[in-house]
């Protein structure tokens, strides 16, 4: 599925830095990134719609295209435990999961972050059972909010590949794990052109992993010991400081990537036609792509609509959001997730971020597209029309629920 770069393609993909462009699924974009990152240990348990990530990686390991140990396990809990072990020994590791699998990992997610292990995991956002549902929803990853993992959300297969590489660069500097999220099916099983950067450029961007402390036969350190009340709090303070350091480094890593590979997807947010907008949509994942089309159609009608695509959930982009909404009258947050008893999760976080801000626009929280229900341009237009007509902010507005 390779082609020589023609004129159309070279406008969008940097020919200087690209080894090849292939039409591939989002899951395979993740697998190819793992190969380019020269990961040494891979451990994962298959779950729809993540399975093809692991399938491809096991093929690449078996054929010798990836020089990595592939550890087969009996559950996601063990998969995460395996990469915790590998990273403790100072080895770059990878795992991937989805939905119930991520939920089963929950205990070890805390361990990975607390032990300061820069693991990178890809999570395919999928709804939780019951009822069984294999389609997109973000509640699985957002429920891991307080585990100490950095979280990114992607809009295209190219962004998935680029962010897995950036995740290792970031994680290994702040010693916190990173989760890269992509939407079930709308990315995971959608094939589209993806540029694979040249290996030597990736090597330049992402040097070999060599942590200061690791389990080794000589030297000797204690890991995972007891911290009494007189020291535990300081460890937690340091995790927060590292999250703050991640906030400083995310734009720098994005710039380094752009400098070497020649692609930039934005930092905490990607602002689309925001500067002069009266009304703003706040989205994440693939709803952002469809929202671009809606923004353009309202602009053609003379309505000043813009979109904020949220790329990072932890660290939460408080400063960037305050800056992005400073001229807006109304902001509508679209959540493909729900915190029962409250509202959409991006909405409640964004609202909290703006409470101490100087400018607080009217804010509405919309919940749409749960369990993979399609969010079409019509769905988003319904949200925009409601937002424009709103005179008071509302925390929870359900979109498209059948009566």
């Amino acid at each position: 599925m390779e082609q020589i770069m023609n004129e159309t393609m070279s406008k969008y993909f940097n020919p200087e830095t690209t080894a090849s462009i292939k039409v591939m699924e989002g899951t395979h974009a993740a697998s190819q990134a793992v190969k380019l990152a020269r990961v040494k240990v891979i451990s994962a348990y298959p779950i729809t719609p993540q399975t093809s990530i692991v399938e491809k990686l096991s093929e690449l390991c078996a054929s010798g295209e990836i020089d990595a140990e592939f550890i087969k396990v009996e559950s996601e809990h063990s998969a995460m435990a395996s990469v915790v072990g590998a990273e403790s020994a100072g080895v770059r590791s990878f795992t991937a999961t989805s939905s119930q699998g991520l939920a089963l990992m929950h205990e070890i997610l805390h361990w990975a972050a607390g032990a300061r292990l820069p693991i990178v995991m890809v999570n395919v956002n999928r709804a939780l059972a019951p009822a069984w549902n294999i389609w997109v929803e973000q509640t699985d990853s957002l429920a891991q909010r307080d585990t100490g993992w950095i979280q990114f959300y992607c809009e295209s297969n190219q962004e998935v590949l680029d962010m897995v590489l950036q995740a290792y660069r970031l994680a290994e500097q702040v010693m916190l794990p990173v989760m890269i999220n992509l939407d079930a099916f709308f990315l995971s099983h959608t094939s589209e052109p993806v540029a694979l950067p040249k290996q030597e450029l990736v090597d330049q961007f992402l040097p070999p992993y060599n942590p200061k402390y690791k389990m080794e036969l000589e030297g000797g350190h204690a890991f995972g010991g007891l911290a009494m009340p007189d020291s535990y709090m300081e460890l937690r303070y340091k995790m927060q400081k590292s999250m703050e350091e991640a906030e400083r480094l995310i734009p720098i890593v994005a710039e380094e990537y752009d400098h070497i590979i020649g692609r930039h997807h934005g930092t905490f947010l990607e602002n689309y036609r925001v500067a002069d907008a009266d009304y703003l949509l706040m989205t994440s994942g693939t709803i952002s792509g469809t929202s671009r089309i809606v923004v353009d159609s309202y602009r053609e009608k003379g309505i000043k609509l813009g979109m904020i695509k949220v790329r990072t959930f932890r660290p939460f982009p408080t400063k960037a959001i305050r800056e992005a909404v400073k001229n807006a009258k109304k902001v509508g947050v679209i959540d493909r997730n729900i915190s029962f008893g409250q509202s959409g999760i991006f909405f409640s976080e964004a609202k909290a971020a703006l409470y101490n801000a100087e400018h607080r626009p009217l804010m509405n929280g919309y919940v749409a597209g749960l369990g993979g229900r399609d969010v079409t341009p019509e769905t988003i237009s319904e949200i925009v029309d409601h937002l424009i007509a709103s005179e008071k902010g509302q925390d929870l507005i359900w979109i498209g629920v059948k009566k």
Partner: protein
Amino acid sequence: MVEIRMHGRGGQGAVIACKILAAALFIEGKFAQSFPAFGVERRGAPVQAFTRIDEKPIHLRTEIYEPDHLVVLDPTLLQTIDVTSGLKEGGKILINSPFAADQFDLPDRFVVRTIDASRIAVENHLGSKSHPIVNTAILGAFSRFMDDIVGIDAIEQAIKESVPVHPEENAAAARAAFDQFEM
């Protein structure tokens, strides 16, 4: 933007056909996005797959409800589901069938053609007589019928590069269907 919807039954290869189509379009320098209707497909159950085509990167991330053209891998689907749902005026419908297009009672506002992809698949040793793998043959006919969308050379190249089993036979089936298709 052009949007194609493909109807088939689980096991006929509609999803792979859309992927090959995307790869072929990409070879010709176009942007393409292909994806299955996200169901829990079983062998024999009705399935759908989609391909979007554009000159620039595609941001729209929804299923396709109003396709420009249709491909039907199994003609019995015309009796069981509303295959033409949302199809645009003047849309082309390519059906895998040994019978002529006028045997199908479809509205005049569509352009209907058939190709005996099952026979061509069997002739090229793809699948069995009861379960022929028709997806590559249908792409050859598609390329002839919708010649403004994709060329047969790109279809052949995409098949050879992406089909893991019997790539030559699959490419030959596409070429045969291209040659036998009657406008």
